[in-house]
């Protein structure tokens, strides 16, 4: 060991070095010196201390390991050749102990053979120095490693921070997902006539599927898609679901729900974010399907009888949240459906599904499935199968959302009575309304009137029946009294569709006439009697003759009259037949519907 020349050099360097030799926390670097030669140890210690470092010096490999644990040095200068645990072995232990923190280990050796030197690095050293030590080289190396160590520490803390942030974000997403899942799954999707496959990423894809029943029993279903991905796409689903579920439960028709959602989104969404959607109403009992489509693929109807595509609804409106509500076309189109017919809705993930050649499944391939004569009951599975065949990789079927609704008049709201409030004790009250032609043209007053009835007497358990009575009487007054539509129009093939088209047409041009509705409620023992009277300004009809027909041919004529009679204690026509009054009795004990 040729120390003397080195010492001189060190004194000079030490004068300039101390401030540089600090670790990241502005504390002096702590160096562990390991050498079995006491003289060399002392020399190195002296040298490093003059450079401004804190030094722990030990004389064996075993002591080095113990000191490493106890003193937690920032860096190690390690002699290779030592009796007992040699430098290589000590290094191995220290590496095990230091985990993922970076502790530079520099071997001090007398070896000058290149292979042996390479061995130093192979055995876990970061670098080596040969004796005699050149203080300038020593200082330069320590400085370089100190910098590297700082860099490593910075990267590591950023990595830890990122990992922490990721965990946090994941938790947030889980919470959000829970909330969104509840939003999505409230309502009527459990109906036995609805089959659906929803992309597992649906929520954060901005896809929304909802189903709910009107008090009168019609099914409302909405499938929509917000622009974009992630939370920004998902956030709008909550107000939309609230409006859809709330307004449907109160009996509002599709056009008013569409307008309300648009209004809301227009107000809350930033420009460029919008909601493309389809809303449909299925009145299975009356074979009527109505839909509004804004910016999503066609709704397809599979005819059970003809085993072929029987109809479609095509996008006719802007998506929601794009235009001011008065510029939005909220009207629904209607068609007649038959029991057993299947209604298909899907997101663009279906026609746009790609195979390994990057070809798209396409609308044409999808519609081909509708024209191969499949049994209606297997078509849904058939479409999914074709899609999987096309893609060749079923595990990719992630962004596919497909819904099938079967027209089934026997299905009703699965949650009808689940959260109905008990009626208020009966009281005496009355209310009346008068609707002019102008208000009838653009507005369906039934939900509003139902709301009044429900709020006043809290007859939620009787909601469906009362709605039925009110709707039958009101629609009779409107369709036959004011619009003068002939029921026999419904009888021919495709009659329902024709009838409703004609209704829309005449309603749009209605400019004279009035309908008066009055409610009178009276106490009757533990319950009450709700009298509903509806008077229209139309010419009336020969109700004596009509009632006789109904009595003589039950089921053929006047289904509406029979339905009202089945729940009311009386149904009386007066005037020229333009005044009808039905009395609905109820008692507190009823837990009907």
């Amino acid at each position, binding site marked *: 060991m040729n120390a003397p020349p080195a010492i001189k050099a060190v004194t000079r360097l030490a004068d300039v070095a101390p401030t540089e030799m600090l670790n990241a926390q502005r504390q002096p670097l702590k160096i562990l010196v390991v050498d079995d030669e006491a003289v060399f140890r002392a020399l190195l210690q002296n040298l490093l201390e003059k450079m401004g470092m804190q030094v722990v010096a030990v004389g064996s490999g075993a002591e080095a390991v113990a000191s490493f644990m106890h003193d937690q040095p920032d860096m190690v200068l390690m002699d290779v050749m030592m009796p007992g645990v040699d430098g290589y072995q000590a290094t191995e232990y220290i590496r095990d102990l230091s985990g993922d923190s970076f502790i530079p280990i520099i071997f001090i050796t007398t070896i000058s053979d290149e292979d042996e030197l390479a061995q130093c690095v192979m055995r876990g050293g970061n670098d080596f120095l040969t004796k005699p030590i050149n203080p300038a080289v020593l200082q330069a190396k320590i400085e370089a490693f100190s910098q590297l160590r700082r860099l490593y520490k910075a990267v590591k803390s950023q990595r830890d921070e990122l990992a922490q942030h990721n965990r946090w974000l994941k938790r947030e997403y889980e919470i959000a997902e829970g909330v969104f899942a509840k939003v999505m799954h409230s309502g009527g999707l459990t109906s036995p006539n609805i089959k659906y496959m929803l992309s597992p990423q649906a929520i954060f894809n901005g896809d929304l599927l909802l189903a709910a029943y009107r008090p009168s029993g019609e099914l409302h279903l909405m499938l929509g*898609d917000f*622009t*974009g*991905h992630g939370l920004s796409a998902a956030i709008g689903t909550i107000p939309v679901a609230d409006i859809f579920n709330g307004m449907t439960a109160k009996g509002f028709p599709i056009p008013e729900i569409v307008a309300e959602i648009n209004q809301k989104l227009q107000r809350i969404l930033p*420009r*460029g*974010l*919008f909601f*493309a959607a389809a809303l449909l109403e299925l009145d299975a009992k009356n074979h009527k399907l109505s839909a509004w489509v*804004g*910016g*999503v*693929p066609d709704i397809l109807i599979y005819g059970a009888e003809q085993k072929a595509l029987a109809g479609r609804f095509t*996008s*006719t*409106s*802007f*998506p929601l949240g*794009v235009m001011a509500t008065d510029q939005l076309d909220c009207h629904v189109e209607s068609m007649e459906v038959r029991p057993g017919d299947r209604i298909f809705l899907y997101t*663009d993930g279906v026609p746009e599904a790609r195979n390994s050649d990057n070809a*798209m499944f396409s*609308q044409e391939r999808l519609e081909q499935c509708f024209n191969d004569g499949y049994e209606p009951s297997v078509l849904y599975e058939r479409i999914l199968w074709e899609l999987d065949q096309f893609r060749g990789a079923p595990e990719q079927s992630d962004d596919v959302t497909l819904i099938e609704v079967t027209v089934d008049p026997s299905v009703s709201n699965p949650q009808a009575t689940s959260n109905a409030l008990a009626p208020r004790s009966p009281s005496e009250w009355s209310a009346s309304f008068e609707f002019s032609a102008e208000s009838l043209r653009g507005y369906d007053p039934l939900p509003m009137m139902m709301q009044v009835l429900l709020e006043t007497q809290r007859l939620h358990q009787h909601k469906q029946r009362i709605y039925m009575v009110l709707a039958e009487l009101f629609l009779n007054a409107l369709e036959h009294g004011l619009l003068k539509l002939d029921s026999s129009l419904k009888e021919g093939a495709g009659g329902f569709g024709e009838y409703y088209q004609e209704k829309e047409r005449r309603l749009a041009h209605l400019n004279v006439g009035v309908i008066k509705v009055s409610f009178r409620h009276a106490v009757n023992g533990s319950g009450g009697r709700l009298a509903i009277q509806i008077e229209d300004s139309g010419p009336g009809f020969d109700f004596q003759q009509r009632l006789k027909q109904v009595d003589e041919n039950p089921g053929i004529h006047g289904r509406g009259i029979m339905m009202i009679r089945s729940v009311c204690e009386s149904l009386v026509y007066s005037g020229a037949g333009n005044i009808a009054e039905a009395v609905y009795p109820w008692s507190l004990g009823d837990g009907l519907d």
Partner: protein
Amino acid sequence: MALTRNISADGKVVTIKINGRFDFSVHQEFREAYDAGRGKASDFVLDFANTEYIDSAACGMLLVFRDAVGGNSANIGIVNANHEIVKTLTMLQFHKMFKIA
């Protein structure tokens, strides 16, 4: 280059050509492209000759673009769009807001 911009000699017509997929990844570039022509330009042309696909986020960007260059009085043409893109734009009723040729 996902996007190229061309301004006519008189500065009145700005043509923006989008290559490949038109989605949120070109958001910044697209914005810069129309921002540069604003003020002087009266007509905008989006050339989709080399555009393979448009996603819903890009459709949203079109609305922002339309607002930025005059809203209802904006004069924006979309040319050379492929069948699928025209279908998508029509489904969204964008043919009522943009001249699709």
